[in-house]
């Protein structure tokens, strides 16, 4: 496998291409996810289709750069159309997105089909934009992808703090006198670039997932923008390269969908196992809190009883008494057991318990804190 990756031209090109795409769209997708524009990518990628067809019709060329420029222009116009419709009418954002997405795509289809039915054009290869065809990537595609990607990421780094403001506190940015609307358009333009890079590889339908999934997965691991972007880029590269290699080495496994499934697995793993926000971590935390509360409840009750015997703080008390003191009698025994484990309480004789010295001190501290808080 490693040997193939190093020496097989096609495999290497495809893996590199998909990884590049993953890095660029993962990083820029971070902004899309944070700004609640996850589906803008979907609209842009669909809207790019007529641009591809028109670029071919006007130039007669299928050079990747020509088609990518056409796609980018159309995607950009589509985005502006969404912004205009939302700003100048009461059509909700999601409806504007859905409409631009499907209408532009329909128009692209009209153009594409009429190109295909024209006997003159050598149109083969245009419909790779529909579903993507990573196996068809060649070195020159790679150069285009990498150049555009570096350009987009370079601009994103250059405007780092402006974009950060745009994502988190738009109004503050405006109050500082920054041109937020123009920054918005710039960032969207970068998003368009990230998308057209991927169109040829994964196609219009699945492109949005490559944009959203790595960023959504990365969000689970950190609360810092820079780190999130780095992780998203890493996840994007992982999904891209992993999916591309698996699909290239397996018969009848299309690339785009395989990459998307890889990215989906990363989302599920992140959702479950991320240290802070992960669902497993959250569940463990909740369980620990429950145990703690149960322990504290029993400890306080034992302390209350111990105070009845000022001369003998270690006087044993029956479990049955403790059970009458709480709303959750069923958890008393478990609470006592875990208190014993921590050395705060000990069993004395048959079903009788008393505080240890350490337990007495701990309970006294809790009681003091409670009094302080109440004040």
């Amino acid at each position, binding site marked *: 496998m490693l040997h193939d990756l190093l020496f097989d031209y096609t495999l290497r090109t495809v893996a590199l291409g998909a990884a590049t795409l993953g890095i660029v769209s993962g990083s820029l997708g971070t902004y899309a996810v944070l700004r609640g524009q996850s589906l803008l990518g979907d609209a842009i990628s669909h809207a790019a289709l007529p641009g591809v067809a028109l670029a071919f019709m006007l130039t007669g060329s299928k050079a990747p750069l020509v088609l990518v420029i056409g796609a980018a222009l159309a995607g950009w116009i589509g985005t502006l159309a969404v912004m205009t419709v939302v700003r100048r*009418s009461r059509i909700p954002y999601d409806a504007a997105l859905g409409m631009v997405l499907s209408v532009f795509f329909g128009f692209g289809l009209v153009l594409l089909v009429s190109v295909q039915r024209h006997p003159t054009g050598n149109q083969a290869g245009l419909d790779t934009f529909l579903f993507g065809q990573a196996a068809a990537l060649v070195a020159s595609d790679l150069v285009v992808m990498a150049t555009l990607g570096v350009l987009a990421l370079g601009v994103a780094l250059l405007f780092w703090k402006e974009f950060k403001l745009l994502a988190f506190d738009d109004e503050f940015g405006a109050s500082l006198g920054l041109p937020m609307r123009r920054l918005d358009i710039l960032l969207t333009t970068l998003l368009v670039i990230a998308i057209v890079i991927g169109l040829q590889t994964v196609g219009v339908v699945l492109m949005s997932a490559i944009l959203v999934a790595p960023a959504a997965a990365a969000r689970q691991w950190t609360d810092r923008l820079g780190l999130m972007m780095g992780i998203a880029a890493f996840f994007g590269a992982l999904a891209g390269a992993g999916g591309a290699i698996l699909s290239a080495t397996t018969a009848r496994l299309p690339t785009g969908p395989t990459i998307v499934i890889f990215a989906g697995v990363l989302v599920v793993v992140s959702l479950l196992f991320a240290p802070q926000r992960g669902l497993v971590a959250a569940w463990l935390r909740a369980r620990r809190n429950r145990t703690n509360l149960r322990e504290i409840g029993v400890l306080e009750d034992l302390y209350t009883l111990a105070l009845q015997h000022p001369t003998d703080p270690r006087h044993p008390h029956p479990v049955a008494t403790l059970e009458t003191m709480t709303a959750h009698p069923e958890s008393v025994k478990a609470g006592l057991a875990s208190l014993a484990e921590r050395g705060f309480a000990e069993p004395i004789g048959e079903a009788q318990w008393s505080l240890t010295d350490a337990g007495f001190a701990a309970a006294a501290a809790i009681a003091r804190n409670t009094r302080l808080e109440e004040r």
Partner: protein
Amino acid sequence: MTPAQLDIQLIAAVTAAACALPGVFLVLRRVSLMSDAISHAILPGLVLAFFVTENLASPLLIVAAAATGVLTVVLIEALSRTERVKEDAAIGIVFPILFSVGVILIARFASGVHLDVDAVLLGELAFAPFNRFEVGGVDLGPQALWVMGPILVLNLVFLAVFFKELKLSTFDAGLAAALGFAPGALHYALMTLVSVTAVGAFDAVGSILVVALMIAPPATAYLLTDRLTTMLGLSAGIGVLSAIAGYWTANLFDTSIAGAMATMAGVAFALTFAFAPERGLVAQAQRRRSQRRTFAEKMLTVHLLHHENTPQEERECRVPHLQEHLRWSPDFARLAVDAAVRDGYVLRDADRLSLTEPGRAWAQESMVD
């Protein structure tokens, strides 16, 4: 017009109407993109059902695909309920994954059979009339009509039966819940309806263009009316018109019918967006212009009133002076003066301006406002 052409238009029109009706509620409830998600995500259900029945025309396919559509909604909601992922991101993750599963299933196990991704995504209406529905050798019309017709009726019946519940839960979900209308159940019922409609329609127009038929006509109607029933009727009407216009456009340019239908739906929206009587861009611009003019007239009359019978009157109440005092450009000053003269508020003698009796009254009234 050949019978095949008539059949295609009939199928297109019925499909458009069937899509537009639930689409109205998608647009109003701000869940338009659920149609995008559902229409893609039904693919694996369709493929699995196809593996079981090995028959593309089996009604089981519709049931399975619709169930997958509902599953999609459940998954999206479960994902966004974890509060780890926003709802739009959840949509953007769930449907591509399900669609990918479908594509991989087809590629691995169904290559060679008549079930390809092109057909699912793009649909092909031109062949629909040749797929006949026959019972005992009697031709009962194209099969697609027998799929979409009942779906249209189903949608109509659902809307008629649950009209008030849908209306209330769309416009005031809180009140609907308080009155015990189970907005959750209604939401899922609506999503089921969207799924069924999408499955029926994708065969004719493909899954992406289903979105166009579901969203564009209702959005267009939303710019034209404030009444739900009118909006439903208009949406269906605009959908049908777009479908038929699309068919003839495609005929003219020899291209994809479904694509042209979507394009026409877009054209209808663009025209409405520009020229709608109250909400169109042109109407907005006109309203702004007339407000600007009225305001300028008020300024002018108030200005004249202020300086009437004062020593400065000779100097202040002249057209060129407005430029200096109100900072109006000569063109705008002329426009405002002309309007005020036309409306009978101001008399003009060369450059000298004076108020008429109604003008004086109006200026006083304006100042009180």
